[in-house]
């Protein structure tokens, strides 16, 4: 029961990366794929329904780690204080941008909050890269591995965002203006090819850097990520990108689980019982809600709504 319990935060984090990778990645890609005000608006109305359903996975993961794995929380969150402050700041401003952007019909207002979305999204992705590097480095940022790791994680987020944008940025009424969706679709191949170069360099850097002590299991996960990127790098890459980008991002917590030594023992079974007993009745509602939300917003982004 106790070692299985770590699957709960691990699963929540995997879900977060797969789902939130879409809206964070799209936010990062926004300055590149969206050039006109119309396209910028479509970016926000694409990301906006998703982030409500995706960020809650991270909120839940942090809650579960704090509540059931205090030793893990102390080592990871409090131990990497500056990185999580940066992550929180990026998250806060990215969300503020999405919530506030559509409230005033002025170009200057839109510009400010679009910038907040883009900068915040980049900060989120870069912070996660640093956190990953720190965890694999045993609590310290390894000097050789860190920059490559950060670039690799950023590429994975960008890829997920591009895959997401390729579908969601298509104009809803079939009218002209699909340049941003096309740009995103083309970007999936480019990003996958970049990833195919960066990822082996990251593995080499990890091997060369004395601070990183990841074993064969982490390498196996890296090979899976490489395979996903290879599929996406080919001619039919954009078609597969939705699936492969999800696999690549979901592999991130798996790399940490396989490669980092973290205190994951649940030392208080009654706390676990309380959390499981209190959340079990809500699980069907949560599942229905999430599936329903993603199905509802799978149609291309509407021209106007609360968020844009």
């Amino acid at each position, binding site marked *: 029961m106790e070692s299985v319990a770590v699957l709960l935060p691990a699963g929540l984090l995997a879900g977060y990366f797969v789902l939130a990778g879409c809206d964070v990645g799209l936010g990062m890609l926004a300055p590149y794929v969206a050039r006109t005000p119309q396209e910028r608006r479509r970016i926000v109305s694409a990301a906006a329904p998703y982030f409500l359903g995706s960020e809650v996975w991270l909120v839940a993961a942090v809650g579960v780690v704090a509540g059931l794995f205090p030793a893990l929380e102390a080592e990871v969150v409090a131990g990497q204080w500056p990185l999580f402050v940066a992550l929180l700041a990026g998250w806060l401003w990215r969300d503020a941008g999405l919530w506030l952007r559509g409230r005033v019909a002025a170009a200057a207002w839109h510009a400010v909050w679009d910038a907040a979305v883009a900068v915040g999204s980049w900060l989120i992705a870069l912070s996660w890269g640093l956190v990953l590097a720190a965890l694999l480095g045993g609590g310290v940022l390894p000097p050789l591995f860190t920059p490559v790791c950060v670039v690799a994680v950023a590429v994975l987020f960008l890829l997920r965002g591009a895959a997401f944008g390729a579908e969601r940025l298509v104009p809803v009424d079939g009218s002209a203006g699909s340049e941003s969706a096309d740009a995103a679709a083309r970007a999936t191949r480019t990003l996958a090819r970049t990833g195919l170069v960066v990822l082996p360099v990251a593995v080499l850097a990890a091997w060369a850097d004395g601070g990183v002590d990841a074993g064969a299991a982490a390498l196996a996960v890296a090979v899976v990520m490489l395979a996903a990127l290879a599929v996406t790098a080919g001619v039919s890459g954009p078609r597969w990108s939705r699936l492969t980008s999800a696999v690549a991002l979901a592999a991130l917590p798996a790399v940490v689980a396989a490669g980092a030594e973290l205190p994951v023992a649940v030392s208080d079974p009654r706390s676990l019982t309380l959390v499981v007993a209190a*959340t079990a009745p809500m699980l069907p509602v949560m599942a229905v809600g999430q599936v329903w939300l993603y199905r509802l917003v799978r149609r291309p982004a509407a021209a106007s709504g609360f968020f844009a």
Partner: protein
Amino acid sequence: MFDDPLLWARLQFALTAGTHYTFVAFTLGMAALILAAQFSAVLRRDGARLAAVRFWGGLYVVNYGMGVLSGLVMEVQLALNWNGLNDVFGHVFSAPLAVETVAAFFTESTFLGLWIFGWDRMNRWLHLACFGVVTLTAYLSAFWVLVSNGFLKNPVGFEMRDGVAVLTDPAALVTNPSALLAFGHVAVSALLVGGLVMAGVSAYHLRRGNDPDGMFRRGVRRGVLVASLALFPTAAVGGAQYPLLVDAPPTSGTTLDAAEIERIEAAASGVVHGLAGTGNAVMTLCWTVFLCVLPLALLAWPLRGLDRWRWLQWLLPVLPVLSLLAGVGGWLYRELGRQPWAVRHHMTTAEAVTELSPGLALLSFVLFTGAFAVLAGITGWLLVRFARRGPEGGPLAPAPAPDDTAAVPVHRY
């Protein structure tokens, strides 16, 4: 004093929690009122009432954004800045918060997304049900957060083993009177806030003669009724908590002996307790204002005064602001009154804080309190703006029909 990381961490928590609660009280109160309004609209198949729901819902969603933003910071802040508390009491204090994030907030945010985007895209009863889930999980969220907060004030249900608190009695933790009474008080006072918001905004529009389809006539009556019904229970449940302030918690003495407890309490700052008293005074004073005005509003109701007495229509919009102020005052009273303890009779606030350098603590304070000031200010401005604007062009108003700009001949021969 200003190079003390504890002071910065405490100030940051106080300011961010106070801001968070202001938006939460609005959320809790308005959710119940909007649910009732939408139920009425769906039952009667009334488009005009549904337009009114779009108006109130628009204010709700604008407010909810800041509620979420502040909530994210609250959650991560506890993990970042209050590591000492988590090290010792993590299993007991943070477990209910874990339930809140997984079961309550997760569901609430998901179904709010469904409610916002599902408008006119799903069966209207399903759409209402989505908001029902949102309301229920909002209150559930408040409950679990108050279970954690109630534990700090009245620690029950645990044992100290090797310097770590281990949960031995989950039932006691969940039925802690400090938690249950606080939840009751928060729930009812939130209804007071919601009622006053609806009454205040409606009175503003009635004063200006703006009342599309009678929505503000209905709004002022509903708001006054709900606020009046919530007024005495707020004081009653709140007052029921006073005995808990005096009695020592049942687990008192298991970590520190009575002499040490007395010594720590004697060394506590009198300024903090003075501030706590000020919070109590503000809260009580605001409640007294409501006690004076709401009976007048109830009296005005059969005399058609709610529609015609301008002095009352000037007075009512002030009350929601006072109710939010009362909420902050109440929290100051609760939290500062517990000082110097983080966990009463077990851990002081000084022991609960993470070991940070003064520079990092100051940086965190500036970053997050600054961000809150900006975002809360913007949200407050937007709320007032949209409240004054009315249902036309509100945040949840239906998208305007596509502009038919093709030239059409005016006359046909």
